[in-house]
């Protein structure tokens, strides 16, 4: 079975059911076939440079600095992000379903990855630092419902549902991938000055440590009732 960008249909067939196997150490998966890492990296780089709205989805294993190697990997991901033209970073900070709905421009969640992909019209994305189970769920849902090209930089054995899946990826391999991206970028003649992606749109513009009720002027009584006043209903 060739694992190509979707939409695959109402309910996708898992590639594992159709005989796609995970690559052995030293190899990678490209469209469901086992190939050399270089070949897969080049294909991935080409997709990143030619498809619209390339986005990196870092997962909890990279976003949270729970040990030194996670922080190193985080640094490597930022270096990679700087080299991809017009790249965005949309984090996957956790796996639980968030009520009532995530802000699709601020995050992606494995219970509904389509929201983010379709809202931002993402056509190529990288998953890095996401636990394998949730990565598999997300990749399969994305392949079912969108035409996004997925690249999985897996720290363990890889993912059959991604178009490109590399295995045993740590900080060093991310930097190697970054070098391949730079190389392919030069070959395609795309000019790009390394620049960090724009920050998360949900971050507030005010500084809450110095903000006070008095800043609201006459509207402060909407936040704190007057003495003796009883507010029966609030919005």
């Amino acid at each position: 079975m060739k694992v190509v960008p979707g939409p695959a249909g109402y309910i996708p067939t898992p590639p594992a059911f159709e005989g796609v196997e995970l690559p052995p150490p030293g190899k990678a998966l490209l469209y469901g076939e086992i190939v050399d890492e270089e070949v897969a990296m080049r294909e991935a780089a080409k997709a990143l440079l030619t498809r619209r709205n390339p986005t990196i989805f870092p997962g909890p294993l990279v976003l949270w600095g729970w040990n030194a190697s996670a922080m190193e990997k985080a640094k490597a991901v930022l270096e990679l992000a700087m080299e991809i033209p017009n790249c965005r970073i949309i984090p996957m900070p956790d796996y639980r379903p968030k009520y009532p709905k995530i802000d699709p421009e601020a995050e992606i969640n494995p219970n509904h990855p389509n929201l983010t992909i379709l809202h931002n019209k993402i056509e190529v994305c990288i998953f890095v630092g996401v636990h394998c189970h949730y990565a598999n769920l997300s990749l399969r849902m994305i392949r079912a419902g969108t035409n996004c090209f997925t690249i999985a930089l897996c720290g363990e054995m890889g993912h059959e549902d991604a178009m490109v899946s590399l295995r045993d990826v740590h900080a060093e391999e991310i930097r190697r991938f970054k070098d391949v991206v730079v190389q392919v970028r030069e070959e395609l003649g795309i000019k790009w000055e390394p620049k960090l992606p724009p920050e998360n749109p949900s971050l507030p513009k005010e500084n809450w440590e110095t903000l006070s009720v008095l800043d609201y002027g006459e509207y402060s009584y909407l936040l704190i009732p007057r003495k003796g006043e009883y507010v029966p209903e609030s919005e």
Partner: protein
Amino acid sequence: MGLEYVRISPGFEKYMPKDYVDLVQYGPFGRQVDVQQLGQFKELVEEHPMCAGCFMAYFIRIFYAALPNPEDTIVIGTAGCARLALSQAAVPFIYGNYGDTNAVASGLKRALTIRFPDKVKDVVVIAGDGGLIDIGFGMTMHSWFRKEKFTTIMVDNEVYGNTGGQESGMSPKGVQLKMAPKGKQFDKINAVELAKVAGCVYVAKLAPTNPKRIARTIRRAILAARHFGPTFIHAYTSCNIEYSIPTDKVLEDARKREKQDFAFYEWMTDEVKEYFEEIEKQSQEVKV
């Protein structure tokens, strides 16, 4: 460790969504917050789909503000209404099959004790009356008989709320609910006495009307469970939907029940009593 896993990787602070940045900066991890300060720090619970007027939702908010070590606490829940709010909090939450909370907690606490014998890892079960005393009865009682060291909190709304309002073992006698069209035929089960007989070292019963008292009871239950044995809190958290209590009368109803069968009651073994006196004296000294 414990705190390291709620620290954002350097460089990613401006890529994380707002609620996580707030959680790390203004949240209660690594410090003691007072329940009276609610509104001045980032709470662990986020938006949840509980009904307007759900007393359980209020209790759960206070619970999360009262945790002594939220960065090393694991909450276990089961089917019911509480899990709707518990799953939206920044504390790991386990949801298994219905009624197995105390069995899962037994296994989890033992595994954590094997792996981290010198660290504090609090395991708290928050489940409803159906999950703990009806379907989970055997597992609940036996986890207490075995003296497993974790806290069980029963959020008692006297009905199976999440499935539409069926009678539960903890419903008062005579009340008419679904599956009891002629009224409940037997008395409300006395969970607190069962807990005492089964071997809990600290048992409390309360109607959550006083935030400071709720916070102190929860804190005591969790601290006692760290060293002495199972602890149990029976909290009256009404279901305003199934018992048709108007939203603005929910607190009044709780106060009324407090005067009737939910008067504040606390029981502990002598060991636990001495322990509390010691630590509460220490914290008074720190304050002074």
